């Protein structure tokens, strides 16, 4: 296929060289396919039911939200043309675009959003994203293109919550059990690309939606290719069979600098909205003691992890926000590597090596625990290995266990069956982290799985989400970060940079604070560089 199409292209080029040259300057051209490599296969293509990034990657191209973040991280309209927030902050009125059709031709209306909202708050719907929608007091559509949402109390993250999670085609799903339908494997959305086929274990194929309301994407096809192994995927990319993939820090620093790579690819680096942490199960009596958590924080050399795991492509995390965003508080307590201090704190907490076996003990029990993390994430496994080695030096024996992602989340994290975990949060752009830190959010499937409870943090979280004024909110979130730094319910480890490589034949890529793929429907390949041409 590859060779054949290249030949065909060459012939074309010889015959019409001037036209082709002209085209590149004259603007974007239609055609070609982008092949995106992924380690994970999507599980289901309905945003509200998906909990893995692979599913969201693909579903995000098929579905739209009412609002979205633009490239500079400000909220902007998507399916909603405009909106008004009432002065008391309790009512949002969305004015929807009138030119939007589902990919099967049926017009999109406010009823679809109401249907999606009802589905997401239905207790039978297995979704992790209910919380924001339970805040809604009332929702109604005075006409097909107007949606009014009312809240009981002011809710700062309200607007941002109307992304693509609660938008579903009512005409296709009404009266059906969403978990039992085939829709999750054959979705129909409003987005720039529409679903073509899903070859299990291999790829998901999407094609341009000619009726997309922002205009048909230039690319004909989007292929989400599943290659479960990062190294193999990289080899495929070098064989020019993958056009876009995430890079590991090693690949970024050491494997992408030769002439070949520079000719065929471009690489991009931008701060990710995510951080990685070591979380303790605070129900465990050993980790209930703050001194023990602080000691572990002192015993872990975060610079070493940043260097060894990320090759310096990132920064040290100090709390649950990332640098260069407005809620980030740079002046919180830090824990530089200090094993002496760690030993001393542990001694205060009653942990000493009384029997001389090199392992600390208390009441006759040695200090050992298991760090659980997910399989396949080599960065986390390396982090765990470094922590294991450092903690051994102060007399704590650590075991590492890796579990496949779905099992890890469903059976261990959700059921609180862990002593310590290494995990990451990708953080939303609104600073509200009620779900993660509030003491009421410790139930099964809820996100405060470590069981953190601090009345002052609870209060600040409550205030923070009920306030619209940024300066005032900032005060609350700054204080939360101070408390968390002192409490160390997590040892905050690092904020990684996102590292991506893209084939150099794609044009229209505009790196922005939000990343690069936000405008993929505007990407194009000049005619003479197109690789995948349809054979008539």
């Amino acid at each position, binding site marked *: 296929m590859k060779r054949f199409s290249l030949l065909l292209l060459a012939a074309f080029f010889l015959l019409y060289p001037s036209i082709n040259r002209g085209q590149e300057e004259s603007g974007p051209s239609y055609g070609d396919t982008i092949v995106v490599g992924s380690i994970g296969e999507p599980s289901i293509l309905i945003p509200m039911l998906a909990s893995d990034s692979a599913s969201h990657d693909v579903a995000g191209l098929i579905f739209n939200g009412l609002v979205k973040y633009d490239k500079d991280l400000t909220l902007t309209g998507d399916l909603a043309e405009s909106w008004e927030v009432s002065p008391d902050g309790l009512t949002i009125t969305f004015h929807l675009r009138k030119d939007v059709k589902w990919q099967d031709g049926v017009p999109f209306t406010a009823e679809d959003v109401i249907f999606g909202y009802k589905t997401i708050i239905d207790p039978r719907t297995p979704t992790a994203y209910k919380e924001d929608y339970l805040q809604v007091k009332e929702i109604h559509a005075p006409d097909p293109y107007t949606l009014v949402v009312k809240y009981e109390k002011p809710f700062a993250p309200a607007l941002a919550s109307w992304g693509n999670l609660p938008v579903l085609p009512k005409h296709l799903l009404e009266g059906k059990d969403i978990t039992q339908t085939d829709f999750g494997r054959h979705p129909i959305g409003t987005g720039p690309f529409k679903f073509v086929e899903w070859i299990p274990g291999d790829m998901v194929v999407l094609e341009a939606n000619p009726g997309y309301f922002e205009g048909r994407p230039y690319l004909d096809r989007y292929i989400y290719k599943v290659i479960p192994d990062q190294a193999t995927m990289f080899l495929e990319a070098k064989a020019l069979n993958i056009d876009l993939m995430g890079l590991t820090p090693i690949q970024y620093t050491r494997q992408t600098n030769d002439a070949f790579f520079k000719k065929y690819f471009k690489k991009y680096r931008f701060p990710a909205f995510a951080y990685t942490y070591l979380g303790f199960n605070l129900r465990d009596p050993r980790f209930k003691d703050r001194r023990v958590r602080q000691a572990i924080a002192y015993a872990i050399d975060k610079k070493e992890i940043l*260097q*060894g795991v990320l090759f310096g492509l990132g920064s040290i995390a100090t709390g649950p926000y990332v640098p260069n965003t407005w809620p980030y508080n740079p002046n919180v307590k830090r824990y530089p590597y200090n094993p002496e201090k760690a030993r001393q704190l542990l001694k205060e907490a009653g942990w000493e090596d009384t029997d001389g076996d090199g392992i600390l003990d208390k009441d006759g029990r040695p200090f050992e625990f298991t760090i659980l993390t997910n399989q396949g994430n*080599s960065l986390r496994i390396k982090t765990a290995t470094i922590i294991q080695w450092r903690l051994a030096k102060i007399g704590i024996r650590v075991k590492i266990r890796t579990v496949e992602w779905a099992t890890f989340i469903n059976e261990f994290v959700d059921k609180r069956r862990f002593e310590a975990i290494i995990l990451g949060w990708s953080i939303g752009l609104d600073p509200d982290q009620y779900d993660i830190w509030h003491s009421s959010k410790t139930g099964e499937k809820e996100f405060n799985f470590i069981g953190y409870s601090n009345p002052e943090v609870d209060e600040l979280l409550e205030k923070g989400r009920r306030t619209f004024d940024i300066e005032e909110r900032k005060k609350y979130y700054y204080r939360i970060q101070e408390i968390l730094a002192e409490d160390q319910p997590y040892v905050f480890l690092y904020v990684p940079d996102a590292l991506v490589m893209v084939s150099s034949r794609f044009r229209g890529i505009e790196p922005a604070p939000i990343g690069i793929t936000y405008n993929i429907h505007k990407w194009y390949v000049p005619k003479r560089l197109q690789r995948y041409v349809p054979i008539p």
Partner: protein
Amino acid sequence: MERVETPLRLFWRRFKRNRLAVAGGIIVISLFFVAIFAPYLSPYDPNEIDVSSILLPPSLDHPFGTDELGRDVLSRMIWGARISLQVGFVAVGIAVVIGVVLGAIAGYYGGMVDSLVMRFVDIMLSIPTFFLILAVIAFLEPSIFNIMAVIGLTSWMGVARLVRAEFLSLKEREFVMAAKSLGAGDMRIIFRHILPNAMAPVLVSAVLGVAGAVLTESALSFLGIGVQPPTPSWGNILTAGKDNIEIAWWLSFFPGLAILVTVLGYNLLGEGIRDAIDPRLRI
């Protein structure tokens, strides 16, 4: 015409003439040596992390280079030899004992006993061993003990079939008839007369078995469901090698080579032993 010699001396005289076999023997003995004296031989602590020397190519300081956490590959491989040796011998020990006993019984007695044993062999052979091992490990926990036991319990069938085949043909031979007519008991015939003559293929098979066990362990570890890190094993060093195959050839090359040489050693040794004891080769 022949001088009277003890079988052992005869064996040794023949064995040492075979240079390849001796080479195999030396490889295997060296492995034992390395495994036993690992703490004294390894230049570094195999788990010593050093982020300032990540993925260094081989040098005087690190003859086999360093891995992605800056650990010394040579030291990790020396400790990995222990795993390899343990898995190989324990697993094959289990397999050979089961295989010889069942094969001998089946071949010698024939009839009902034979069909029963062979049905069991068929059953075990019909389940793809690697699947069986993976399934068991999915239900249990990946640990070195589970791996040794599972490999052993799933790899005796080849030995059993070979032993049975040998017994089937040998029991009709004149020397067995002669022993029987002289009133020798079943056990005596099985273990004194037939088994020694059936040992050559068993030995070859056992040696291939060690090789197989070493390969299986490395494959499991390579897939991440064998020996768990940070315990060093050749297989899991190779996993890191796979992730960095383009930039850190030493991470793949040395452990792969170690596996290759080890298996080669067992094979050469086994074939050498076979050649040296097989009376049919004596002319």
